[in-house]
């Protein structure tokens, strides 16, 4: 795992959580896939937005 990038690990984490979340929250495969995609997109999108916001903050 030494060569894995932060972005890849974040996407992997988001993917795992999205699959489990989709399976938990919905009942039909179509709904589960849609919910998983929404969770994945939300997690990755929020991380990217927060990353850029923090980039401009003088911390």
């Amino acid at each position, binding site marked *: 795992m030494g060569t*894995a990038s932060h972005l890849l690990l974040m996407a992997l984490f988001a993917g795992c*959580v999205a699959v489990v979340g989709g399976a938990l929250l919905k009942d039909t495969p179509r709904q589960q896939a849609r919910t998983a995609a929404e969770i994945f997109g939300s997690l990755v999108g929020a991380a990217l937005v927060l990353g850029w916001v923090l980039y401009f903050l003088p911390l």
Partner: protein
Amino acid sequence: MAARPSSKRPVRAAAPATPASPAARPLVLVYLLGWLIPGGGHLWLGRTVRGVVFLVMLPAMFVIGLALDGRLFPFTPGEPLVALAALANVGSGLPYLIAQALGFGAGRVLSVTYEYGNAFLITAGLLNALVIIDAHDIALGRR
């Protein structure tokens, strides 16, 4: 005089008929199996596809967490945040017990992926707790 209906809620009687008739499953065993084997409660209740998803994904997250040098936190008195992380780790069930028995999960703080590993390990346990709650709802016929 007609008999009055019982004031007790017939929760179990309202369970829908499924192939495995979840209403017949003792809840304690559903919890125990669901904790020990992620997705095991769902498999036992006849929710095969969902159970297999959990059975694959949650141990996979746990193994990835270990591979990323994550730590299985000990129950340390006086450190509530560490205790909460330890509790989340225990939620993974059998993978946690096996890792503890084999001496995995020491964690490498200097590793770049240490925090990622912790995130995977802790989240796997917490998600398994949600999976057990879902199995509880299925066993009561709410889903």
